[in-house]
């Protein structure tokens, strides 16, 4: 198989403009004869569904939530990047492109990233026109702030609720199309398979989550906008329902899965408090603008803090190690996420951890409060401080916050070409569900940017090129391929319900999460990965013999929903480990202990690993085939990332 990324010819800055001119157009009278299926209604899905409907296509949109407005994009806090250079501080499309490629540790496609930076400016215009209430200055113009991994202020924000406001903007555009009849919305409906006819994606199988009805839907193209797979770790900042099922089923139908080992561990989350924990809560990275990260200099002092014999505020300045400021004087507390996370782990591994479990560091606002006053800090971060107080019972205005890294985002995803199409014709992946723009590490405030770029400004152009060549024929849902796919889904559900084992679904999910965190988490090595792989294989075998799924199919059954998702995580987890094993280098969020510089920084191997690892499914319990897409850097010089 040859992976053709379909990157247009020409200079970096001209590629997208030329491509938009070269793609085929669908005439307005024909657009209304096409049906596009959009799965997922977060930023990518809602923006795509609305924009395609505005163009005249008929859209069927699906989400498993009770309303499209509840997708997990809503929880993004900090902001959205755009190369507006409103602050006159030297930003440009090229700088955003450069920062993103560098931040991704040189494992992303230049052309995709440049396009992302290029359309970023239009996203802000679009959102403002929709009535998204971004933060403003007293003069009435938009405010910006800086964010990890950047030295310019290019992040637009709406207090700590940027994702919510952007999603509600996209949801309002979607709702307008629902009212116009161009989008048919299917809430509480989960996609359980992709249907291929003659090698092309032509429909999906869904389960109505209220009635259990298994149905199929036919369309001319299928867009998966279903988010990332961070919940493979059980504990993550993802929502409880976030899952990889749509992407994984597509993978099993032939779509390649790219760079599955690239997971982002976010440095500023509230530490785990006990075994009951169901999810982790992120504290926006924007806190690192004013908060200073530190641990006690000595293990003895840290021990006293852990035993609550000493309050952190009682520790003298000379006994504190502001390790990020010490090691990275030019970026300080604003180093990219992977660097911040790894350093927190290192501090705790060395015995400097500050909570009962020894897995937490301080994020301290004392100096910022002394400098700007408590009111100024409250105005900036009030809702985050309140949330922290609510969850932990501690007051962060008086004592430093305690934070620890947690799984947050997955850079890997379905392999797509420049048009966002997977290697399966007619099957697209947008937003976090694809792999394309963030390389091995995503910069803060870039997920919202990518989701909306894909949905508002990329897919409306690229999908026409495919549809124009496809023809208008519709495939009826009584076609044998549809019936076959429906039957497979029904069989699998019957199998899950028939096992009636001894352990419930959460047991397996938690066990999988522990394996992934311990052996394929912030730091990985060959021995651990091999052990983890073996453990997952055993756990998966046990799952299919001993899982207990209560209730029946023909009802709202959350136990069955979870079982379907966890069964897929149990396969995906193993592929993540295979990918982590195959990538004999460290880059971005993927840190192999065998490959580090003498100072403990990630050591890339550009000669042998400057490629996208795209995995092909070959059958149940069979090793997957690795395909490589070489990454070519014509514009950015590959260097050891330095934030010193």
């Amino acid at each position, binding site marked *: 198989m040859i992976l053709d990324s379909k990157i247009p010819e020409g200079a970096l800055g001209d590629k997208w403009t030329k491509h938009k001119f070269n793609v085929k157009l669908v005439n307005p009278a024909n657009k209304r004869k096409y049906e596009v299926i959009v799965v997922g209604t977060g930023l990518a899905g809602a923006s795509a569904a*609305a*924009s395609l409907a*505005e163009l005249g296509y008929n859209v069927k949109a699906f989400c498993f*939530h*009770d*309303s*499209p*407005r*509840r997708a*997990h994009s*809503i929880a993004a806090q900090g902001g959205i990047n755009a190369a*507006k250079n*409103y602050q006159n501080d030297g930003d440009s499309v090229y700088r955003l492109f450069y920062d993103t490629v560098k931040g991704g540790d040189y494992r992303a496609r230049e052309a995709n990233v440049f396009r992302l930076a290029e359309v970023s400016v*239009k996203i*802000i*215009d*679009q*959102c*403002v*026109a*929709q*009535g998204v*209430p*971004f933060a403003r200055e007293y*003069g*009435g113009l*938009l405010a910006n702030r800086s964010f990890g991994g950047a030295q310019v202020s290019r992040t637009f924000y*709406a*207090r700590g*609720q940027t*994702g919510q*406001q952007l999603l*509600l903007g996209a949801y*309002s*555009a979607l*709702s307008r199309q*629902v*009212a116009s009849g161009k989008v048919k*919305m299917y*809430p509480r409906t989960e996609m359980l398979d992709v249907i291929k006819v003659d090698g092309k994606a032509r429909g999906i199988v869904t389960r109505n989550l*209220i009635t259990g009805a298994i149905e199929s839907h036919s369309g001319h193209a299928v867009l998966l906008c279903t988010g990332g797979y961070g919940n493979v770790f059980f504990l993550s900042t993802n929502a*409880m329902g976030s899952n990889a099922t749509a992407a994984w089923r597509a993978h099993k139908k032939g779509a390649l899965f790219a760079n599955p080992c690239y997971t982002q561990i976010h440095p500023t989350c509230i530490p785990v*408090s*006990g075994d*009951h924990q*169901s999810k982790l*809560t992120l504290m926006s990275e924007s806190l690192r603008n004013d908060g200073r990260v530190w641990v006690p200099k000595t293990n003895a002092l840290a021990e006293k803090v852990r035993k609550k014999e000493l309050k952190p505020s009682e520790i003298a300045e000379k006994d504190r190690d502001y390790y990020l400021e010490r090691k990275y004087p030019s970026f300080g507390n604003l180093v990219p996420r992977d660097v911040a996370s790894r350093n927190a782990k290192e501090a705790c591994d060395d015995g400097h951890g500050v909570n009962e479990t020894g897995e937490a560091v301080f994020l301290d606002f004392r100096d910022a409060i002394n400098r700007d006053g408590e009111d100024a800090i409250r105005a900036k971060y009030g809702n985050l401080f*309140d*949330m922290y107080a*609510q*969850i932990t*019972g501690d007051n962060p205005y008086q004592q430093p916050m305690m934070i620890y890294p947690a799984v947050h985002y997955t850079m890997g995803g379905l392999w797509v070409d420049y048009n966002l199409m997977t290697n399966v014709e007619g099957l697209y992946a947008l937003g976090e569900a694809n792999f394309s723009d963030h390389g091995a590490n995503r910069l803060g405030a870039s997920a919202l940017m990518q989701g909306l770029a894909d949905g508002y*400004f990329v897919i*409306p152009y690229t999908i026409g090129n495919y549809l124009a060549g496809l023809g208008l024929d519709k495939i009826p849902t009584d076609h044998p391929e549809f019936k076959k796919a429906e039957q497979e889904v029904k069989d699998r559900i019957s199998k899950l319900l028939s096992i009636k084992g001894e352990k419930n679904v*959460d047991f397996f999910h938690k066990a999988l999460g522990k394996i992934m965190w311990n052996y394929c988490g912030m730091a990985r090595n060959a021995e651990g990965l091999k052990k983890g792989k073996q453990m997952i294989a055993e756990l998966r075998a046990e799952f299919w013999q001993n899982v207990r799924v209560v*209730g029946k199919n023909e*009802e*709202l*059954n959350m*136990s069955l929903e979870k079982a379907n998702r966890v069964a897929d995580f149990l396969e995906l987890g193993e592929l993540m480990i295979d990918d982590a094993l195959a990538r004999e280098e460290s880059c971005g969020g993927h840190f192999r202990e065998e490959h580090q510089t003498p100072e403990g920084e990630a050591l890339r191997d550009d000669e042998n690993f400057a490629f996208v690892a795209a995995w092909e499914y070959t059958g149940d319990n069979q090793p997957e085939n690795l395909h490589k897409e070489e990454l070519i850097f014509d514009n950015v010089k590959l260097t050891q990332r330095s934030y010193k």
Partner: protein
Amino acid sequence: MNLTLKIWRQKDANDKGGMQTYQVSDISKDMSFLEMLDVLNDQLEMKGEEGVHFDHDCREGICGSCSMFINGRPHGPKKAVTACQLHMRSFTDGETITIEPWRARAFPVVRDLVVDRGAFDRIIAAGGYVSVNTGGVPDANEIPIPKDIADEAFDAATCIACGACVAACKNASAMLFVGAKISQLALLPQGSVERKTRAEKMIAQMDAEGFGACTNTAACSAECPKEIPQSVIARMNREYFSAKASSKNV
């Protein structure tokens, strides 16, 4: 902590439903309320019974999924938090906790604590947007908005559509929800073009869904996890009267 739970169980929309009593033990004060329910559901599943169904997703208080009456109050006893952000340290050992779904004709029960809030989506679809297509919009900074106006619009825009306002109201009125969206868009220049038709259409849809009229008791704002103020209802009424006074749809 050991607790007694009285929970509304209802198999589906057609079932009559009723309260059931359960015991949970060894609950940590650091657990969230929903994690406590996870413990109960683990117990039930290990006994071969189906767990209590409740909507939940982000567990960070922002998606608006969770929706339950706890001891007679939407989202429980604490001010300005959703059920998912409520922690067990707000309860005492040995306490009996009553848990019920939202009760409103416009929010029919789907199962146990899960209700159908599709009415909210239909109200937004009636006009809760600015009619702009993707592309072809002015540069973001060509629309300056005074900071105080932007902040007020933001306060209204923080609504998470959980439905606590409806559940708290004796009349099951949705005016806080509708007023929040109407206010956000009426305050901003982008939304002012369509302000009249928006107010008319959204309110007509609100009435068609079977939500009641405002009681003026302000229970909605008091229970709103995002503390949406009463002023959005006043603004909605003003928008509505102003629209009706010059409406083409008399």
